[in-house]
């Protein structure tokens, strides 16, 4: 069965510092991978997704993620964090469902705290 592991429950960084959030997945076929962000009291918003092709994916708000098949990882990065990036971040792997669509399985999330 598919699964997603986000090893870090909380990450604390200083504003302006670089960021890397880790995500490891387990899935037998070619994975479809997503990163979502959830601001306090809000629903989730897609940051970026990987389906195929270039393993370095650019997303919104200056985020990028790199797919590494050999490590079963899809880590999220940002070169310089802003205070507004403080939020909960979810990694997800899309798996086949009935009707041909893909149902995401979410990790437990990583809470990002940004110090001024």
């Amino acid at each position, binding site marked *: 069965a598919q699964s997603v592991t986000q090893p870090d429950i909380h990450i604390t960084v200083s504003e302006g510092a670089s960021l890397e959030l880790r995500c490891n997945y387990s899935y037998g076929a070619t994975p479809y991978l*997503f990163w979502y962000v959830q601001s306090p009291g809000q629903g*989730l918003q897609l940051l970026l997704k990987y389906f195929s092709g270039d393993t370095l994916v650019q997303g919104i708000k200056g985020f990028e993620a790199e797919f590494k098949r050999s490590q079963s990882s899809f880590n999220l990065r940002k070169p310089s964090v802003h205070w507004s990036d403080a939020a909960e971040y979810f990694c997800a792997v899309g798996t086949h469902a009935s009707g041909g*669509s893909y149902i*995401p399985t*979410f990790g437990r999330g990583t809470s990002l705290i940004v110090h001024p």
Partner: protein
Amino acid sequence: DAGITQSPRYKITETGRQVTLMCHQTWSHSYMFWYRQDLGHGLRLIYYSAAADITDKGEVPDGYVVSRSKTENFPLTLESATRSQTSVYFCASSEGSGSPGTQYFGPGTRLLVL
């Protein structure tokens, strides 16, 4: 405004009562989903629907019922609420099959069962 809406945003109920959470989307997306979010568990899929009149169980369906008579609506009913169903519930929608669609999430319903 176009988008995905949930109602109510907050609900307090008592054990044993029936509760229905509403979800409405204006994009005519084929797929709709219900998740619950609990501390330490992330998002867990309750039910999903591929089209009107087609629904399927997710990871944690027990105690919940869904229906989808119209493409745009996907209500979630707790037939007899329990305290363990206290949670934040998110509805989401996505486009059709063939490739992994982006999910668009509603703002959530915060449910407290006393």
